[in-house]
Structure formats: structure tokens, C-alpha cells
């Protein structure tokens, strides 16, 4: 065996797959562990064999960027190895994501909690942008939450380096509800501001506990945005009517954010409005956002360990065996019973090819051998 293949085999032996957590078209996610230390990990196995163009772009992007980015608010890629015709990414194990937390109606968010999640999101994003990387798919279920409450940006399958000015980029990025208007208008030259818009939508969602701008189609998305924030004028956003896919979608008046976000502080609304500014060049940067008054005003952000956490099925499975085994589903249920079904949004066959989806874990599976 060649030296390189041997090294690969050595790496493979460092990690054990324990149980399947989710499966998509091109990837399977396993819960796993580091053999030597027992540390929990997630192993994302990407099936490359069936791909006619070899390693696919989202796998390549994820590996390329996560290999370089090491930050406490970005998911850590611990190792990469190949097995037969599969590529395996060993990622740090994270219990849940912000979408699950938002949807868990048993949880109450304090303003300090929201501030803490926002600070962690901006810190991770600032690090991406400082490294000239656009994420291009920020949304609550790509913001994973560790058992210690730390928020980590995940899923770099759509990420790319900033293009030089004059180089086109695709506008078909970012999940619709979090997509900024310049992309909806077909803008091919854009910047880190696209990610900031997404963060603004997430910020609003944390306060509302429901998606802020849920458009039903790309066209409806623009309408939804304008209905919420008012149709932009030429003065608000110079030149937007000249964008490739510009279409007028109707005139909507500007309503103060205060009307909807009744409980938010003035600082919070000021930061929100700076994230949801139409003109991308005037939208706040991640760096400036971190210096915004909102983060310096009271209340201080909650310590990650004090943040509300949902008791997910993934967490249940990591409990000692006798808790989970046998007929313990009934025993484990009480805290769960009040909850809206967490897997709700998955029923539309959401692909988990590029994400770590722990919501499909079956409770009490004997596969959990911790």
C-alpha cells in the first residue's frame, strides 16, 4: 500500500461510526467517536462514487474552507479521509441548531439570550469575512449549538472566496427566506453584505419566534420583503431598478420596525435596521455590528452555558443506556410532550446532503452504545 493510502487508512482508524443520524441523496451523517479519547463526533459521509464529475462542489467547498477556518463560532472539521468511494468529513458533534431552539415553544428567550446568539453569529461571520469567505447560506438551521451552548456556523457547501471586483458570482445562493433583495434582483456582483441580510432575518426570527420574511416563491419573496420594510425608493437604494432581474412588485409603505417588534430595545431595532438596509453598500459589516451599541448596552449577553436549550432526541440518545433503552420512551417523554414536533419542517423532504441533521435520530435506538 502506498504511503498516502496508508496515512489515509490510519486516519480512518482514528474514528468510529456509531449510528446513522440522517441520510440524504449524497450524504449520510453518523454519530461517531474518536477511538482513542471517546470524544463524540459527527461523521458526514459523502458518496462520491455515483457522481460523474468526481468530488462535488459542495463537498469541495466545505473541505476547502473548514480546513482553513478555526474559530470557536465555526464548526470544526477534525479530519477528512476517504473510504472506498466515499469522502468522510469528521466534524465536531453538535446537539442541536438554532432552528430547533426557536421552534421549541417550551423555551422562553430573554433579550440577553438573543444578544448572546447574535454576538456569536457575528463573531463567526466576522471571522469568515475577515478571511475573505462568503458563507452564502446562513439560516437558523445552519447555526449549530453545542452542548455547552456555543453557537457555531456550519454548512460551507455554498461558500466561496470573495470574487475580485468585476468577476461574476451566481445569484442562486442563500435559502429564499434569508436571501437579500439584490440577489433576488439577479445581482451578479455582490459582497459580504449578502450574509449580513441573512443575519438580520435570523435576528428578527429570534425575536418573533417565526420566520420573518417567509416568501412562497422568489417573486413573492420580494413582495414579502417590501411589504415588511417598504418598497425601496431610488434614494434608498441607488440603481436597483437597473439590476438584471429587476421587476416592480408594487408599492408598499414603510412601517416602523417598532410596530412589529414591540418588545425590542431601540438599540436592537437600530442594529436590525442596519442589517436589513436595502443598499448593500450601506448595510452594516460584521465587524461594525460587533461594535454596535446593542452589544454594549444592558442586558449583557447570556453566558452560553445559560442559554435556553432544547432537549432534543439527539441529547436523549446520549444519555446513559438505561435511560434510553427498552421502553424508556415513555419515561423520557414528559419534557417533550408539550413541544411542537421538532421534525416539522423536515417533512418536505428537506435534503440533508450538506447539513448535519440530527432531528431524524430515533429515540431509544439500540445503536446508541455510549
Amino acid at each position, binding site marked *: 500500500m*502506498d*504511503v*498516502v*493510502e496508508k*496515512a*489515509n487508512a490510519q486516519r*480512518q*482508524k482514528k*474514528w*468510529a*461510526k*456509531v449510528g*446513522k443520524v440522517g441520510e440524504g441523496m449524497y450524504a*449520510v451523517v453518523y454519530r461517531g*467517536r474518536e*477511538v482513542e479519547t471517546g470524544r463524540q463526533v459527527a461523521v458526514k459521509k459523502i*458518496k*462520491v462514487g455515483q457522481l*460523474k*464529475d*468526481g*468530488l462535488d*462542489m459542495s463537498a*469541495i*467547498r466545505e*473541505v*476547502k*474552507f473548514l*480546513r*482553513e477556518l*478555526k474559530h470557536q463560532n465555526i464548526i470544526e472539521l477534525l479530519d*477528512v*479521509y*476517504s*473510504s*472506498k*468511494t*466515499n*469522502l468522510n468529513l469528521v466534524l465536531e458533534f453538535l446537539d442541536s441548531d438554532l432552528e430547533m431552539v426557536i421552534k421549541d415553544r417550551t423555551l422562553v428567550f430573554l433579550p440577553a439570550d438573543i444578544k448572546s446568539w447574535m454576538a456569536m453569529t457575528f463573531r463567526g461571520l466576522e471571522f469568515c469575512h*475577515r*478571511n475573505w469567505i462568503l458563507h452564502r447560506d446562513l439560516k437558523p438551521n445552519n447555526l449549530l449549538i453545542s452542548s455547552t451552548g456555543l453557537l457555531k456556523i456550519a454548512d460551507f457547501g455554498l461558500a*466561496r*472566496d470573495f470574487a475580485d471586483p468585476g468577476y461574476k458570482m451566481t445569484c442562486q445562493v442563500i435559502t429564499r427566506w434569508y436571501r437579500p433583495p439584490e440577489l433576488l434582483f439577479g445581482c451578479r456582483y455582490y459582497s459580504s453584505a449578502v450574509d449580513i441580510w441573512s443575519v438580520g432575518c435570523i435576528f428578527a426570527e429570534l425575536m418573533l419566534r417565526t420566520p420573518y420574511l417567509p416568501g412562497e416563491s422568489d417573486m413573492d419573496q420580494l413582495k414579502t420583503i417590501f411589504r415588511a420594510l417598504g418598497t425601496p425608493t431610488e434614494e434608498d437604494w441607488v440603481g436597483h431598478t437597473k439590476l438584471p432581474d429587476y421587476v416592480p412588485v408594487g408599492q408598499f409603505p414603510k412601517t416602523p420596525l417598532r410596530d412589529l417588534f414591540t418588545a425590542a430595545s431601540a438599540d436592537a431595532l437600530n442594529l436590525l435596521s442596519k442589517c436589513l438596509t436595502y443598499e448593500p453598500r450601506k448595510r452594516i459589516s460584521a465587524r461594525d455590528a460587533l461594535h454596535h451599541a446593542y452589544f454594549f448596552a444592558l442586558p449583557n449577553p447570556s453566558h452560553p452555558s445559560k442559554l435556553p436549550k432544547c432537549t432534543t432526541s439527539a441529547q436523549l440518545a446520549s444519555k446513559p443506556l438505561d435511560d434510553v433503552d427498552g421502553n424508556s420512551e415513555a419515561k423520557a417523554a414528559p419534557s417533550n410532550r408539550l413541544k411542537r414536533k421538532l421534525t416539522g419542517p423536515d417533512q418536505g423532504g428537506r435534503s440533508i446532503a450538506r447539513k448535519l441533521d440530527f432531528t431524524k435520530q430515533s429515540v431509544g435506538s*439500540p*445503536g446508541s*452504545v455510549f
Partner: protein
Amino acid sequence: MAATPATLAEQEPTQPTKIPLYEASTQFKHWRFSVDELVRTRASMNEAAVDAIRATFEADEPGSSANIAFLNWEEEQLLVKLYMSKISQLCGHFRFPDEVEATAISYLKRFYLKNTVMDWHPKNVMLTTLFLAAKTTNNPISLEAFTTHIPKTSPSDVLDLEFLVAQSLEFEFAVWHAHRALWGIVLDIQSLPPAAAQTEDPPPSQLYDAALAHIRESRLTDAELIYTPSQIALAAASLVAPDLAARWSHSKLSASGSGTPPAALDATVEAIKSMIVNFGHPPNVNDVRDIDRRLKICKNPEKVVGSKAYLAKKAEEERKAEEKRNKKAVESQNAMANGDPFEELGHKKEALVDYDDDDDD
């Protein structure tokens, strides 16, 4: 919560001082060598390869390796260098941007720090690195479009090696390039105050294209494995406009307050310049042809499809796989017989690692 300052300090060591982005990169951490290290790495890799291939020959027929002239590491390098220059030609053909070309060449260099041409001929590896680089730099091309434009190349020639190449790169796909640094220097130079004395340097507007030609030459050398992208870019600029480049670098040094004395930087730049001038050109084709001819004899027979050694290796692999399948079948039969459908999972508990990875299908 009431941690004393001492324990806090233990738990959270003080933030290290901010390091430049480049120094956090995998390139800085894993792909830089001293000149001596490079020689040692290549020489020992070559030595190990020759030993292994010699053993294969001997296993087949004792004494058969006695008359084989194996390639030494310098000869390997020369062959690789020829294929680096081929990458440039292909990139011109595909109209790939500089980024693809530079990345593919970096991949090829990195690949042959861990592999020998006697196992993997650079002709195919070169194609794979180029195809992969197009993807990693966000300029993907379909495999079909790629292979139909290259004579005598099938999709499997490219794809079969993709994992091997990616493994050899340690899956570290991001490369920092000198041409990017050059662009920064050129932008920077435009804000320098005008020179006090008359110089023969070209105006900044012509600097980039002229210096880029030297960057391209530098790609055929070991420069990127030894120096930083900005050092190489400065050397390329200095070959075109020595005064301007020196003024820029000295102004930069005094502004940054770094401890580097200008003389030390100048010496580095001179070393890179001479590397570019002396080694920044494709090798003599006749020399390489001779090496390639010898390679036909000394290449690893295990890698030659259809050869005795190749078939022997395949048979051995098949035998092991068969053994594993049988073992598995017996285990699951036993599990059924015991009426315990989870028996197999119980086994997994003992054997922590799922080597089989047999949930593939």
C-alpha cells in the same frame, strides 16, 4: 462561577497576539520547507519508493532488479517540471484563469512530495490536479468537457486518481498565490510618493503584466514551497522594477514596525530572483525524454494494469475482501440463529471501528 483569577488564567489562556491571516493557513503550517528539508523529503521519498519497487521486482523474479536504473529524485523532479509546464499549456487551451493554473501546479508539486513518478506518472496526475484545481477555485468544468478536449484521455484517467491526489494534498485545497500578492503590491505602489531620482523602472501601469511573467516562471521552481507569496511577488516586481520594488518594501517595513532589517529582506528577494532566473523555465525535452524512457522500465509493476505483480496485488485484495464478507455472513447468520437482531450491533460495540464501511449501498 467564583473562579479565582489564577484558575481563570489556567482555563482561558490569554488570547495570542493576532497573527497574520496567512500564518493561520494550512499552506503556512504544512507546505513550507527549507531548501534542505525539501531535498531530504524528496530524497527519502525516492529512496523508499525504489526499495519498495525493487522488492516487488525481486518477489517476481529474484535478481531481476539488478540491472534496472531507477530514477533518482532530481530526475523525478525534472519529469514533474515538464508536466508543470504542460499545465500552463492546457490552461491556455481551456482559458482557465491564472488561479486555476497556479493552483494545479501547486497541487502537482505537493503531490510529488509524497509520491513517486515511478508509482504515478505525472501525465495523469497532472490532469487530475488540473481538474481538481478547477473545482477548488470555483471554476468547475464537467469531466466530459474536460476529457474530450484532451487527446487520448478517458474520464477514468482523471477520476481514478482524484482521491489519491486529494489525500496527498491532505485535503488542503486552499492555496495562497504570488500573483494575488503581486496585485496587492501593484495597488500599493501607486500610492508611493514619486521617486526622488530618475529611475528606469516602468510605470506602475505596466508593472503588473511584466512582473506576472516572472511569477509564471516562478511556478516552475520550488519558490512557493520555500518562500511566502508576497516574497515571491516582491522578487517578481523587483526583476522588472528594482528601484520601485525596493522603495515599496522598505516603506512597508518601516510602516509595519516589524523587526525585519531591510538587508535581510533584500537577501531573500535576491535569492528568489536568482531562483526564477535560473530555474524558471521548462526542462530540456531531450533530457526528460531519456528519463521517461527509463521510467518505462523502472516503474512500479504493481501499478501496471495487467502485469503479473498487478494481478497478484489485485488477487490478494480480492481474497481479503472475500474473507471479510464471509466473516460478516457467518456473524449475521449466528445473530439470526440466536434470535437477537441486535447481535450485530453488539459486535460493533467490541470492534469500535467499522472498517468495512459496508453501509454504502
